[in-house]
């Protein structure tokens, strides 16, 4: 399988007061197409930072990231945005739905950004898949946490992404709802054949993926095949 994500010698620091805090040190790994991958670690291990860099939301201090065959370092901010729109899906811990758009409109946005004319119809299909087509005209504030995350799922898959990044997808949900969302995530992922990268501190969730990258203190502790497999 071809590699969809190739990370080499990544380093990242953040300024904290007058000090520089090294968040990631010499991170190197790769992810194959259609693979499910988890990045786990305790709070402050750098996993969210690593996700942000891999998704092109930020730039490293040094090292290279190749996503979908493109060196992210060679792209401008707008270039990375374009790449994200075409190839990447996101799911966030706090859903990150646009509060002023309805559920349907939220799901349509990635398609509309591509200029796709049938965005509304495709979005409705996706909402139906996540069981929320009857709530299409509701605003995020009118939906429960679990419902909002399902809308976010539909949005994440709307642009047929090659790779999907999920940051603590069940972090704000209760156990039952979280399980349902995870099941839906993996089901949709299977159908779409998307590479899935999950960042979580939930080891049970991580165990559902094929490989797990463990981080601690900004360094790779180990990269292993999932014990469940």
């Amino acid at each position: 399988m071809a590699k969809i994500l190739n990370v080499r010698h990544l380093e990242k620091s953040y300024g904290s007061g007058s000090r520089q805090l090294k968040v990631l040190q010499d991170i190197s790994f790769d992810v194959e197409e259609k693979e499910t991958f988890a990045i786990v670690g305790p709070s402050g291990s750098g996993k969210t930072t690593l996700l942000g860099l891999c998704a092109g939301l930020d730039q490293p201090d040094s090292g290279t990231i190749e996503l979908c065959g493109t060196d992210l370092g060679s792209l401008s901010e707008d270039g990375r945005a374009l790449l994200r729109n075409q190839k990447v899906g996101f799911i966030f811990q706090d859903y990150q739905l646009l509060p002023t758009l309805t559920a349907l409109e939220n799901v349509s946005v990635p398609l509309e950004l591509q200029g796709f004319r049938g965005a509304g119809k495709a979005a409705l299909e996706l909402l139906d898949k996540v069981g929320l087509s009857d709530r299409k005209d509701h605003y995020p504030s009118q939906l429960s946490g679990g419902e909002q995350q399902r809308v976010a799922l539909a949005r994440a898959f709307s642009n047929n992404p090659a790779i999907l990044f999920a940051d603590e997808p069940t972090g704000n949900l209760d156990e039952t709802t979280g399980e349902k969302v995870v099941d839906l995530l993996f089901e949709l992922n299977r159908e779409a054949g998307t590479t899935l990268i999950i960042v979580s501190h939930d080891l049970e969730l991580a165990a559902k993926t094929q490989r797990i990258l463990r981080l601690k203190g900004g360094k790779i502790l180990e990269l292993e095949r999932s014990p469940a497999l």
Partner: protein
Amino acid sequence: MSKVNRTPSGAGLNWLFTMAVRDGRASVSKLFLFMASIILGIAAVVAIQSFSDSLKANISSQSRALMGADYIIDSNHPPNEKVQGIIDSLGGAQGQEINFASMALFPKNGSTKLVRVRGLTDGFPFYGELETEPAGAAAQFRQGQAALVDATIMLQYGIQPGDSVKVGELIFPIAGAIKSMPGSSALSSTVAPPVVVPYRFIESTGLIQQGSRIDYEYYFVADPSLDLEKFSKKLDPVLDAEGADLDTHLEASRGLGRRYENFGRFLNLVAFIALLLGCVGIASSIHIYMKEKLAAVAVLKCLGASRRQTFLIFLIQIAFMGLAGGVIGTATGLLLQQYFPVLLKGFLPLAMEVHVSTRAALMGLVLGLVMSVLFALLPLLGTLYVSPLEVLRIQEGKRTASGKATLGVVLAIVILIFLFSLFLLDNWRFALGFVLAVVITFTALAGIAWLFMRGIKKYFPAHWGFCSRQSLLNLFRPRNQTMTMVLAIGVGTFLISTLYFTKDMLLSKAVISDTADSPNIILLDVQTDQQQEMAGAIRNRALPVLGNIPIVTMRVQAINGRTIAEIRKDTTSHVGRWVMNHEFRVTYRDTLIDSESIAEGEWIGRVSKSDTVPISVAENFARDARVKTGDLVAFNVQGVLMNTRIASIREVDWGRMQLNFSIVFPEGVLEKAPQFHVFTTKVPDEKSSAALQQVLVRQFPNVSIIDLRQMLTLVEGILDKISWVINFMAFFSIVTGVIVLIGAVRTSKYQRIRESVLLRTLGARGRQILTITALEYLFLGFLGSLAGILLSLAGSQLLAGFVFETAFVPSYVPFLVIFPAIALMVLLIGLGNSRSVLNSPPLEVLRKEVG
């Protein structure tokens, strides 16, 4: 999932508009409030601009009717041979008029009034109408020895058609009341209302005497093919040289238009300030609004929107809001201008037809759009710097617009303000001055707010009660609106207070001194052979003769050896036209008076015999005649040439209500020259004034009487009217300030709700929350209005020193009335808009927080 092939073509402009609408849907009330901030300012500017355009158009289209003819040749002495020759060569005047100020006596009740007597020949006016009540009186009065009298004074003195008026030696039955006539505006009629009599009776009134200030007017109806501009250009200089003047209806209407234009420009500035205040409100509100949108911007960027796209979505919202504000503001302004003829009644020279000015309407729309976008640009630029990383709650460091971008936007705003002021004022110096004044005012108010907040932080009164302390803390909470509120309140208060102080200053210049030897009655045109009789008449009423001022008329013949004719021919000469044409009324005395001081040279009060008489001239004469001490001026004193030398230049306070002179001769020179006199006296009250006037008018019908207290009342009345109009325009600033205030209060509403709920959860009672809120607004109201008044004091002091050159004694009204009134208004607005804060159930809010 649908596997339809999608070839990405990118989101176009349609999508941006769609997103702008979608996002704006949820914020309609907020956006409307922002829009409302500029509506009034635009309405005010459009109303004044459109009305000014209408006025200019009306003056232009009615210019013939305003003059009553196509052109006039006028002079303040009977035309000499050359002028008469010119008049004859033009085919003779179609109409003639002699007019002068004089006292009118109404025998019915013995009342007297200073009037402008206008003796008219048949035919006039040739355009427009002499409107009378009854209508037939305009024709009737010419048939016999009858008069028309101004309608206002007939009402004032209870005079009816059929009663009579005594003008000079003649008694005229009154045929009717003058409602309007060409050459007479409501403002000029306030001082000396018209009394119209047939031309042929003027001589018989006996009022054409030595020293009388008489205007001789010759009215012409021109051939339609005559190019009046060229005609005037050719003939006016010729007539000028002979002491006469040519005015075409075009020039007269342009001059009239300019006078109103100046007033209109001032009103425009006041309206512009309202608009600027609204824009400040927009800037502040959009700043908070965009802060709340930054999370959404990060999400959009994460999903693939470019920086340009996210910027444009919100730019479209703001632009739409600005345009909508422009539309509503323009429509409001165009409606409002319908009211202006009523508002400006008493100032307008004609009956107006108000129409919509397309230019003004377009200007309103453009202003709405441009001002909104420009003032919202800085917060909008913030969207460019939002990182998509913020969706992961990683905030490396908040990035805001670069220094360069900020500077660029601020510069663009200042340039726009300058350009618009230049458009309004048509003078770059004034425009620059206005911009500086605005920048200083807004900066000073912002500075006061900032200093106050710092001061509170540094010297926080920890010993105060909980509610007071909490209310003070609220003033500098994160996302506080203290700055905006202080600006909103402060600018409005500043405007109103400055208008108040300025009016006081203008009135103080018109005040009459109340010492025992300061006159309040001036008697003009007393002939030399009437002096003793006049003195006797005054003393008979147990009144003092305070002054007997001799007046000699003369004209400038030459300056430093060059004759006036030579100076006129010299195109490089800057000598003022009035210096060359004017018949000066000159006096002679050996001392200076209260309103004078020597600025240069030496005062010489008496000479025995001199070939070159040392005289004293006022600063304005020296400036306009381009002369200095030591220069030589030759005067034509009624046919006799008199050589003089400028011995001193006087500073004269022309604003003082007393007789002042441009030129003063020493004693010992003009005693034997033909002259007339001005007597002055002092009356204790109105009754004595009326009684004296009745006696004098009967005994000396040629003498004009000016009661300075009545003049002061007139001046006060005019200033009151003017300030009412200005206050009306300033009202727009106040209301805009209120809207900005409401916007600022609403913007922080949810924050206040959260705080209130948290406090109540922690055990605070409703009354405590109310007290905290009330105190917060009271502090803001006090701070804003006090800052505005203090700034106004400083500004008025500068005006007094540099512009009006008078001492400044501030009125108590702004402190005792405006200050508490504004503070109370702020309190009521704040509490009124905080009702939901006080009434929100805690659980509902806390639940929303957890979401």
